[in-house]
């Protein structure tokens, strides 16, 4: 009986192929939108997690932050870095960084880049490796020598391919320096190319020749994982407050980012955002469901006579109801299936376009399919009930 009902539903849908297809588009778009949003959200989360991981694990970053509009935050200085290194337990390496956008010139070529004032410790703290050449020596750091380590992006853009840049001169704005190394790509997440488009110089040199101040942008601290992040953070806060002469009750004029905590925060924000967008996309699924209901009502009216015949020859109300319900569910299932395939294509393409990894989630796809089938039940129920409640005599008289 159910097999026959299913066959009948298929036949009805085929009989009104154009109408069925147009009606199903609502469900198709709804399902495709929900799956696409969730898939992209997953890809985005994975990418952000990778980028945060590229900060390095067990890393804290401290940077100045305004406490209120009238007071500028007190910037960090090299003294702060030294104090952290000397006074904080569990610290492996600590370094300051300051950066500025510059134009890099070499061999008649010109490239927008960024100069970063760093130290050897910075490379350790951020876990940056070397592709070619060497790192800064203590003497170079102390003297603020005109040496630099270029990023792979800079190498690619303005140096001659295949020939070692070591010993070459590169000019940053008005400052010439000698290339002593090329650092390894920091880009682990996919599109954070900016981190590779950078030129490292000794911190002192950047302060003197570019920023013109003895302040640093942020302090990066890598710590021994045997210490808890919270403990290190607390002692860091205490130390910095003391050095900034903050009274108790005054808010911190700096902020500390913990890579692990950041990971959690960003992931949960992206997850919530994904949910919100998917919910909005779900509304189109709802609209699709209303479309199904509409066409089913039309179908019931059109087939009133048929319903009358079926009732007259002894069909039960629930059998008529099942017939129309099956039709709505089959319609929605088709829509769901096509929607899944559409979503596969769209999310794959979009993931490529916005450069996030494509992550296929079978659970979300299955859930969307089940959900679309449920739409068939929910929105098919009223028309089906209406069909089953027809009076056979009235229905038979219907023209």
């Amino acid at each position, binding site marked *: 009986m159910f097999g026959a009902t299913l066959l009948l539903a298929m036949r009805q849908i085929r009989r009104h192929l154009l109408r069925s297809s147009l009606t199903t588009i609502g469900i198709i778009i709804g399902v495709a939108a929900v799956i696409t949003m969730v898939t992209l959200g997953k890809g985005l989360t994975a990418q952000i997690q990778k980028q945060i991981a590229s900060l390095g694990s067990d890393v804290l970053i401290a940077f100045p932050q305004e406490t209120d509009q009238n007071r500028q935050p007190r910037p960090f200085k090299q003294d702060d870095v030294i104090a952290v290194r000397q006074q904080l337990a569990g610290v492996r390496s600590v370094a300051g960084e300051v950066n500025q956008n510059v134009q890099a010139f070499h061999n008649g070529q010109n490239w927008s880049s960024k100069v970063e004032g760093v130290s050897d410790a910075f490379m350790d703290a951020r876990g940056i490796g070397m592709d070619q050449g060497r790192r800064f020596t203590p003497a170079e750091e102390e003297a603020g020598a005109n040496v630099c380590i270029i990023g792979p992006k800079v190498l690619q853009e303005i140096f001659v391919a295949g020939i070692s840049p070591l010993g070459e001169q590169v000019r940053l704005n008005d400052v010439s320096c000698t290339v002593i190394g090329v650092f390894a790509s920091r880009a682990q997440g996919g599109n954070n190319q900016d981190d590779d488009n950078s030129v490292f110089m000794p911190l002192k040199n950047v302060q003197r020749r570019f920023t013109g101040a003895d302040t640093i942008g942020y302090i990066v601290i890598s710590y021994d994982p045997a210490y808890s992040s919270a403990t290190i953070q607390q002692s860091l806060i205490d130390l910095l407050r003391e050095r900034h002469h903050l009274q108790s009750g005054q808010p911190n004029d700096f902020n500390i980012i913990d890579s692990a905590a950041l990971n959690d925060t960003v992931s949960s924000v992206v997850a919530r955002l994904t949910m919100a967008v998917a919910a909005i996309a779900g509304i189109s699924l709802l609209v699709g469901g209303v479309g199904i209901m509409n066409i089913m009502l039309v179908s019931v009216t059109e087939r009133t006579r*048929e319903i009358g*015949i079926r009732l007259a*020859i002894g069909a039960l*109300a*629930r059998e008529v109801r099942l017939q129309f319900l099956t039709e709505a569910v089959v319609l929605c299932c088709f829509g769901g299936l096509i929607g899944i395939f559409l979503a596969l294509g769209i999310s794959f393409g979009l993931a490529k376009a916005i450069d996030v990894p494509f992550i296929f989630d079978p659970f979300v796809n299955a859930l969307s399919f089940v959900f679309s089938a449920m739409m068939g039940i929910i929105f098919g129920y009223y028309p089906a009930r209406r069909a089953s409640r027809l009076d*056979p005599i009235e229905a038979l008289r219907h023209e």
Partner: protein
Amino acid sequence: MTGESLIELEGITKTYGQGTAAFQALKGVDLSIAQGEFAAIMGASGSGKSTMMNILGCLDTPTSGTYRFKGVEVQAMSKDQRSLLRRRYLGFVFQGFNLLARTSALENVELPLLYRGEQKALRREAAMKALDLVGLGPWADHTPAELSGGQQQRVAIARALVTEPEVLLADEPTGNLDSERSIEIMELLSQLNRDGISILLVTHEAEMAAYAGTIVYFRDGLIERFERGHRNGARVTA
């Protein structure tokens, strides 16, 4: 030929609408139809014969009175119970044929068996048998649109017969047919009656009613008179 009482009506009334707009289509009908009888209900339009047919066919319930089908009171039954009764014991033939469009004759005939939950092979076999009986075996694959009116009505009769019902209710079965086709249909019904099926025929044409063993004349919601036909020698009591 005729047996014990199949249908018994006592004081059947049917009122449509309420209050001042109320219209009494049946005003107290007593009727008894025996097993194996061929009865025709005649009357002008508005005489109540269609209402009578709907009630006899368990498609409608009387406002008051008692309707016993094989001794069971129908007026107290639920909609679904009446559906089950129709499914098991009744076959319908309508004036407008009422076949499913764009569905082959065979599948139309199979339909009642589908609701009976019969297996596909059995449905096929029984439907083919019924189509052969009405002489439409070779047309099994044709849709109603590809058949003449007379052929469509034969398909409808085959559909009514396929469940081997006890009663075949025919509501103006020849109303849409020319006289030649009408005679064919009436001959077919007579043959079926001789084979043992009780037939209730509603018609306004005397020539068609003449095929019945008993003619019940309706007028203004009441039975005006009975007339015993001579073809079948059927018997009616009231």
